[in-house]
């Protein structure tokens, strides 16, 4: 055997040819797939044109939500960019700073993040008729963005471990020593949000995080990693958003969630229209749909989300809204302090900032 990676000249040519064939056939198989999206709209009197959505919602949820939207507005062609919150925001910011925002609607993250986009002048105000049914705490006073769901952060645990007491103090107890995992505020926007909220609450403060460190908390990248580590039993307890925990439980993972009685920081995944959106009409219709009773029911059903509307009950598995104490802060304040809080956190945990 002269050469490990040996094959004849003919074989090389054939391989190249094969790649070409695959590429061209893939090209041709792809073209109609794209056409399918456009076809229903063409020549149809109900055609509603196009819209571009940037979101970090799970792919499956987006698809189903859009199915509902398209049923209402047949023929609308919605282009989606879905990725991690950080990826979506940085792409949007980059495009907006370049003077050519591509998105019509943003649908992700938390109020402080949108506050910052608002301060940078990237958002367009819109008073949706649906806002009446939504707690004003979750809506921007200038109607630049509105919350779409309630995602609360509490304590997740592996069901093979003893059920934790419903208090944040549990995480500082002897029972939880070296057994707690939390997401890093440097990678997860939700974690950064929680940090700013909790450090401003009397019952927690920076003292809480100092003690967490002393109790041997492990910091991982994001909420997904926390969920996996708790589900596999690597760490029996974790700080996690309820949505991830309850969804994993519903799928059958050995995890459950407790709601600390002091209260839970809550993220609202706002929706907003981009300033200069090329498809403004459609964007407004989409925001209306997301906030409508129908849209909220759909989100609760397919995505297992806790609705932001008062008149839509949460899916089974959630406690009634009245039993949870939500911790809130002014998004303006939170937007200003986030970077400083992250620096303090880095100092505390001896991480580079």
């Amino acid at each position: 055997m002269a050469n490990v990676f040996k094959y004849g000249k003919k074989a090389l040519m054939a391989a190249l040819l094969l790649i070409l064939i695959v590429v061209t056939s893939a090209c041709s198989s792809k073209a109609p797939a794209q056409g399918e999206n456009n076809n229903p709209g063409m020549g149809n009197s109900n055609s509603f044109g196009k819209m571009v959505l940037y979101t970090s919602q799970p792919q499956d949820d987006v698809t189903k939500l859009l199915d509902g939207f398209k049923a209402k507005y047949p023929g609308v062609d919605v282009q989606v960019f879905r990725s991690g919150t950080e990826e979506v925001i940085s792409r949007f910011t980059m495009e907006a700073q370049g003077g050519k925002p591509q998105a019509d609607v943003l649908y992700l993250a938390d109020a402080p993040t949108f506050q910052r986009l608002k301060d940078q002048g990237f958002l367009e105000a819109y008073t949706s008729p649906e806002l009446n049914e939504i707690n004003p705490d979750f809506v921007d006073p200038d109607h630049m963005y509105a919350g779409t769901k309630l995602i609360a952060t509490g304590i997740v645990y592996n069901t093979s471990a003893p059920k934790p007491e419903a208090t944040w103090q549990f995480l500082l107890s002897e029972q939880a020593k070296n057994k707690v995992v939390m997401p890093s505020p440097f990678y997860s926007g939700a974690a950064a949000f929680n940090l700013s909220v909790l450090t401003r609450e009397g019952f927690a403060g920076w003292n809480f995080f100092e003690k967490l460190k002393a109790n041997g908390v492990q910091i991982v990248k994001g909420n997904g990693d926390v969920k996996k580590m708790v589900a596999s039993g690597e760490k029996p307890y974790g700080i996690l958003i309820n949505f991830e925990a309850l969804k994993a439980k519903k799928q059958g993972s050995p995890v459950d969630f407790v709601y600390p009685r002091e209260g839970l920081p809550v993220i609202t995944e706002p929706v907003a229209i981009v300033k200069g959106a090329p498809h403004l009409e459609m964007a407004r219709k989409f925001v209306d749909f997301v906030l409508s009773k129908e849209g909220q029911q759909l989100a609760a059903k397919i995505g297992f989300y806790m609705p932001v509307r008062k008149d839509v009950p949460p899916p089974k598995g959630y406690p009634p809204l009245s039993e949870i104490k939500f911790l809130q802060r002014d998004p303006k304040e939170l937007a200003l302090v986030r970077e400083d809080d992250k620096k303090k956190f880095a100092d505390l945990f001896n991480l580079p900032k």
Partner: protein
Amino acid sequence: MMRLATKEKPVTLAVVGAVLALTTAYPLIRLLLAGFFTPTEGFTLAPLLQVVFQKATWTVLYNTVVVSLAATAISSILGITLAWLVVKSDLPCKSVINIATLLFLFLPPYVQGLAWLQLWGPVGWFNQLASFIAGKKIVLWNVYGLDGTILLLGLLHYPFVYMTTATALGKIPPEVEEVAFTYGVSRSRVVRRVTLPLALPGIAAGSILAFVSSVGNFGIPALVALPAGKILLTTYIFQQVVGFSSISFARVSLLATLGAMLAITGMMVQNLFLKHQHFTVLTKETAPLCYSLGRVRIPLAVFLYSFLACATIAPLIAMFLNSLLPAYGVPLSLETITLKNYRFILADLNATRRAIATSFILAGGTTLITIPLSFVVARGIAEKRSKFYLWADRLGTIAYTVPGTVLALAVILAWVDPWIPLPIYGSIVMILLAYIARFFTLAARNLTAGFAQLNPSYTEVARVLGIRPWQCLWKISLPLLRPNIQNAALLVFITALTELTVSSLLWISGSETIGVTIYNLEAAGYTTYSTAFATLVVLFFGVFFLLLKRTRLQTFLPGR
């Protein structure tokens, strides 16, 4: 050495220069400028001063250098040993090594990382086994920390060294070593003084590739080093990306520049090793000299193959078993096994097929463009001593060394508000350009290694004899470089096929890649779905390569 002055045709130079300028130089220049111009303040040196005077920058850089060098050492030792055993020894069942190497290349890093956590995490299989044997809960070793990062990066990148070294060793004519033996030189001395130096271009190319890959890897440090409180350059850069402020992006740009300088330093060090060129007579049909391993032959094979099995099959099995679980963390038993994940993936066959098709188009396109491109560049460096091509090659590494997220942001920056009025923003062409920039160096390393071994006197003689340049290329250079071209094509194709970080920022409806699909499922909390999808992808390509073998289009699997 006397050499005939050969001038590059201006057309070739212009085309290659234009492609590289458009794909690599232009976005990187925009990125670098962003380090000094912020949207709010205009020109500013504040970010530069911040980066330079922050102690964290240098701690992080130091960690990155140490980890990358150590990982490169592991990759090189493993890669060279395996290559030597396969090409120059009578080890039994050598094809196992080839298959294992291919598997390593095929499994995307994010899949491997997860699998390793499952094997070597604090409650991973090995520690559970150890606890079971010991009768109490013990942790022998866990993968979190810089040691785990080094080991994983070293393993992940050994195929680079293996492939380039095996190719280089295969080209050494047996006569050279035989002559040494007739002078009574000992075997180990021949290996040290003759064989390895002759294979040096290949070894160096593979090692530098392993090094820059380690510098630029984000997934492993995020998964394994971060939970131990250790930050490397790529994870540090990502922290700044998440900072979102205009200053923080300037810092991203400057930190990425630091990483790029690290890679270019590596390339220049590599050049020192290649100062003395090692031309070999290239004979196509002669088999390389094989050494008998004697008594250690069988034990060595058993040891090696069990090691490789642990390193490649185990992650595969971990991935496969996970894909059978109803939800992450459910204990595996006959009652819990389910095929529902596969049903989910196959139910949306259209999306799955579309992702595979998009990845195929991108990987195929990238391969078809990077190979000729790097061929011209490598030839320019070897035959024409062109400074232009030398620096094109060095700078071409940068797009591979910066984290994929940063490259993607640079591409967005470059094309959303372009200096050159090309309306490609948001199209698949933009992703293709980004891929060409990113994977150029994978091809270029293999081809420069090939040209470094190619004796330029062949083409010179041919030219003296009046043979036309294109004939010369077709009859001499191409056949002699075929193994290098194959390696380059294989590497670029597979890496592009499973690429994640660049496409996860650049895709839009209808152009999701395989990587994006897995990531989207994973990010949505459907770990079991994403493992099912990854299993299907591996199966798909397993069948693909089996068919290749069947149709006698044998590629990489020897032993026909």
